[in-house]
């Protein structure tokens, strides 16, 4: 498989982000499994984020590839989380009765990151400001 057809695998701290996009053919899917597992081993990753927001079609084969990948990654100590599944794709695989074999799925990539312990300082800062305001709001107003 040439380089242009490979699905990118992006390292984020001790995680691997795999944005799957467009029409995924079988050789790409197979290449993905071996590439990701090699990277999990090489980089000692703790988590694998598969983002499906750009995928056109998810059929039973691609689902089984993801299940296989997540089970193998789990054996190597990396947890898999799938994010960004579009509603029509979710409804299609649900209609077909396909199971994702216990892979954790979340709506957004942010949720996936959070589930693996990564949180934006900016979001945290906003939450802290909100808590401060809730607790100390009146006091701050008094001071003003």
């Amino acid at each position, binding site marked *: 498989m040439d380089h242009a057809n490979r699905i990118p695998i992006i390292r984020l701290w001790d995680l691997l982000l795999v944005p799957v996009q467009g029409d995924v053919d079988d*050789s790409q899917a197979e290449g993905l499994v071996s590439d990701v597992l090699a990277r999990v081993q090489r980089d000692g990753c703790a988590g694998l984020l598969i983002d499906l927001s750009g995928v*056109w*079609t*998810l*059929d039973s084969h691609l689902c089984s590839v993801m299940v296989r990948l997540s089970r193998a990654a789990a054996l190597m100590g990396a947890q898999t989380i799938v994010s960004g599944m579009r*509603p*029509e794709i979710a409804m299609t695989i649900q*209609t*077909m*009765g396909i199971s994702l074999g216990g892979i954790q799925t979340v709506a957004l990539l942010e949720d996936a990151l959070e589930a693996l312990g990564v949180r934006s300082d900016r979001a945290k800062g906003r939450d802290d400001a909100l808590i401060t305001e809730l607790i100390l709001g009146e006091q701050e107003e008094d001071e003003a």
Partner: protein
Amino acid sequence: MSVFERFLSPINARALARSVTHRAGAGGSPATLLRHIEATSVFFVPIDKREALIEAARQLLGPEIPATAPVGGLERISISGVAVPNTSALSAAGTDVLGPTVAIRMEADLNEARLVARQMCQQVGLQGFAAQKFVTAVSELARNVAKYACPGRVAFSHDAVGRRLRVVVSDRGTGIPNLDAVLDGKYRSKTGMGLGLVGTRKLVDEFDAQTGATGTTIAIAVKY
């Protein structure tokens, strides 16, 4: 292959370029590639741009290819209001318009089957969940052929009167053992074929499967 972008939306251009690249990678000759472009463009390139696209592709692939190359490797039928032959119980009474036929010889051909399925959806305005179900069903059936009964074909047609898209997937393999049990969900092969077939039946509005020692024909239809 950025030549396609002059005539197609970026997504369609990319999809067509990929399907052409696949065929080239599988050893397709320039003439075969051009015929593939001609066959595919019939369904999603406006008629006023089609000739220009094919001409541009010919310039790219080799101007010496004859304009009316005989259809050899790729099975293709033009969209001209011909009635579908009665290949299955699902064929309508002469109101179908033949769409493209995609030959399935290897797994890379699934991309083309999905591409054509997507184009058929666009053509009739099928979107979202309905389009997703159709494309997924085509992908599942074509995969069964690629995996177990190569070569085969995926024939698309369009019933404008009954407002249905139809697909007939056929092969000359050795048939599906225990088809009834598979469709009842009582049997699943170790390789997971049962799941694909049962799942496909749930995705479509009409489903008909005939199988025997000389091959299998599965016809599906979705309403729009």
